[in-house]
C-alpha cells in the first residue's frame, strides 16, 4: 500500500532513496513500507505527529537502526559505516552540561574528525575550514563559548556547522525547530534555505509542525501510523490523501495560510499537525524554557 509517490527523477540521480523500508520494534510496526526520494539540492520536510516514526526513519537512513525490510540508498549506494561522511546529522535538542570543556568551535571541528583516533594536531587547513563554517552559520559571536552555555538557536547553528563541515551530500535534522521561539526558529529556517544552495546539499528536516517550513519546503514526506505519503505540499496535504494514510477521516483547514490537519474518530476530533504551542505568539523568552516543551 503506497500512497502518493512522486519522485523528481530516476533513482540513480537521487541523493536519497528510501525504498520500502519497514521497521518492527518489540512487536510494533514502527515503519511500514516507507518509500520516497530526495533529489539534489532539495529541501524536504518529514512531517508527522509525535511518535509517528520520524526519528526511527532518520536513524534508519543513518544506518543506526536495523530494518525488517526495504533498503536505503544514499547517492546511489547502500548506507554503511564507511559511507557515513555522505550524511550530516543534527540530533534532537540535547541538554548539554556547561562543564563539558567543548567550545562551539571545537564541536564544529569534531564534525571533521571526531571519529579519528589520537590527539588532534594543530593544522592550518583544519582551522580555516572551521572558521569558514562558523561564518557560514553566522556563529562568530559565540564561537568561543562552551556548547553548554549556548541558547537553543545558537546550539542548532553550531550543530548544523558540525554536520556540514565534512561536506555531506545529505543533511538530516531531527526536530530542529522544537523548543525554539519564533525568531530563533525563523533564523534557523532561513539559514537552512540559504545553506541548501550555498553548500549544494539536500536537506531532510523532521518536524511535528509544518507551517514554519511551508515557505522553504520543496516537498513533504508525511508520516502517519508508520506509513508515508510524499510529494509537493499541494499533492500531500489533502483530505483524500491523508484520510487514506491515517485510515480515518481527516480534514485539512487553511487558516490564513496556516495548515491544520484535523482527525475525526469516534465523534471526537483532534488537531494532529499544525498546533504548535512552542511558536505561540507572545512567547519571546529564552528558547530553553521547559514551559514550552511538549
Amino acid at each position, binding site marked *: 500500500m503506497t500512497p502518493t509517490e512522486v519522485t523528481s527523477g530516476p533513482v540513480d540521480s537521487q541523493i536519497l532513496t528510501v525504498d520500502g523500508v519497514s521497521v518492527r520494534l518489540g512487536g510494533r510496526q514502527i515503519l511500514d513500507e516507507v518509500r520516497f526520494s530526495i533529489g539534489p539540492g532539495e529541501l524536504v520536510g518529514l512531517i508527522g505527529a509525535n511518535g509517528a516514526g520520524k526519528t526511527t526513519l532518520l536513524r534508519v537512513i*543513518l544506518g543506526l537502526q536495523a530494518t525488517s525490510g526495504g533498503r536505503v540508498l544514499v547517492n546511489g549506494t547502500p548506507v554503511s559505516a564507511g559511507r557515513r561522511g555522505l550524511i550530516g546529522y543534527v540530533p534532537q535538542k540535547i541538554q*548539554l552540561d556547561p*562543564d563539558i*570543556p*567543548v*567550545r562551539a568551535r571545537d564541536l564544529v571541528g569534531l564534525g571533521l574528525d571526531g571519529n579519528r583516533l*589520537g*590527539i588532534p594536531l594543530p593544522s592550518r587547513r583544519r582551522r580555516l575550514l572551521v572558521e569558514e563554517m562558523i561564518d557560514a552559520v553566522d556563529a562568530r559571536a559565540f564561537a568561543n563559548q562552551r556548547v553548554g552555555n549556548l541558547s537553543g538557536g545558537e546550539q542548532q547553528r553550531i550543530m548544523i556547522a558540525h554536520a556540514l563541515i565534512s561536506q555531506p551530500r545529505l543533511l538530516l535534522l531531527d526536530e530542529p525547530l522544537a523548543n525554539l521561539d519564533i525568531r530563533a526558529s525563523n533564523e534557523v529556517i532561513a539559514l537552512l534555505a540559504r545553506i541548501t544552495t550555498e553548500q549544494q546539499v539536500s536537506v531532510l528536516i523532521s518536524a511535528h509542525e509544518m507551517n514554519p517550513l511551508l515557505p522553504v519546503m520543496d516537498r513533504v514526506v508525511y508520516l502517519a501510523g508508520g506509513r508515508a505519503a510524499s510529494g509537493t505540499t499541494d499533492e500531500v496535504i489533502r483530505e483524500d490523501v491523508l484520510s487514506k494514510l491515517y485510515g480515518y477521516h481527516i480534514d485539512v483547514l487553511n487558516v490564513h495560510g496556516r495548515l491544520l490537519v484535523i482527525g475525526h474518530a469516534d465523534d471526537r476530533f483532534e488537531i494532529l499537525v499544525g498546533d504548535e504551542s512552542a511558536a505561540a505568539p507572545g512567547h519571546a523568552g529564552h528558547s530553553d524554557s521547559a514551559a514550552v516543551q511538549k
Partner: protein
Amino acid sequence: MRWLFYPGFFSSSPVHVALVIGGISALVCGVVGTFTVQRGQSYAGHALADLSVTGGSASFLASISPLWGFAGMGVLAAGTMDMIGVRNQRGRDLATGIVRGAGLGLAALFLYWDTQRSSTTGASITILFGSMFTIGNGSIPLVAAFAVPALLIIGLLFRPLLLSSVSADLAAARGVRVRLAGLACLVAIALAVSLAAMTVGAILSTALLVGPAAIALKVTSTPGSATITAAAIGVAATWLGVLLAYDSFTWPPSHDGWPVSFFIVALIFVAFLVAQPIGRRRIRQVEG
C-alpha cells in the same frame, strides 16, 4: 628553606618512591578524571573505588601487591557494569549500585580475614587510606605498567570520547563505536582509580580522580587545556602533600607524622574552594 624542606627530604628513599608513584598516579588521574567528570561518570568512579577495596584486601590475603587487586577488581567491575547494561542514566546508576553493594560485602569479609591473620589493622589502613612512605621502589615498574594503558586509552580515544560526551547520537552518526569507547573509558577509570588507591588509599581515591578534574573544568575552556591543567593540579597537590607529610614528623601531637593522604585531599579541597569564584568570573567574562 629549612622550614619548608625539612633536612633529609631530598635524600630519603621512601620520599623518592612516594614522589615518583604519587606523581605518576596523579598525572593519570588528572587525564582520566577530566573525561570521568565531563562524561558524568563520577558515580561509576566512586563505585570502582569501593570495589577496589575488595581487590586490595584480597591481594593482601594472597600476599601480592595490592595494585594487582585494585586494578584487577576494577577492570572486572567495569566489564560487569557495562554488561549489566546501561541505556539510560537511571539504569546505569542502578547497575553500578548493585555491583558496588556486592563488592563491598566481599571487602568486609576479606578485611576481617586480613585483620585476623596479621593481628593488626595495618592492612586495612593501607588499603583504605594508603601509606605512601611504605611502598617499596620495586612497585615503580608495576605502577608505570598500569599507567601507560590508561593514558593510551584516553590519548587514542580523545576525540571520540569528547564527541560522545556531547551526544552519543552525534558520535554514533559520525561512525564512533560509542559503546566500545565507553567501555574502554571505564577501563581507564578503573586503572586510574587503582593507581590513586595506591597513593591515597581506596576510600580517598576518587578525590584524586575527580577533584583536580573538577577544578580544571571550571577554570579552563578547551578540552586540551582542561586535561593538562587537571594533571598539573593533581601532581602539584600530591608532591606538596608528600612534602608536608614529611615535615609533619616534627609536628604535634605525637611527632611521628600525619598521613600523606590527608594532606593531598585537603590541598585538593582548598584548591577547589579557591577555584569556584575564578570559574564564575570566567563564565561571566565569556557571557558578557
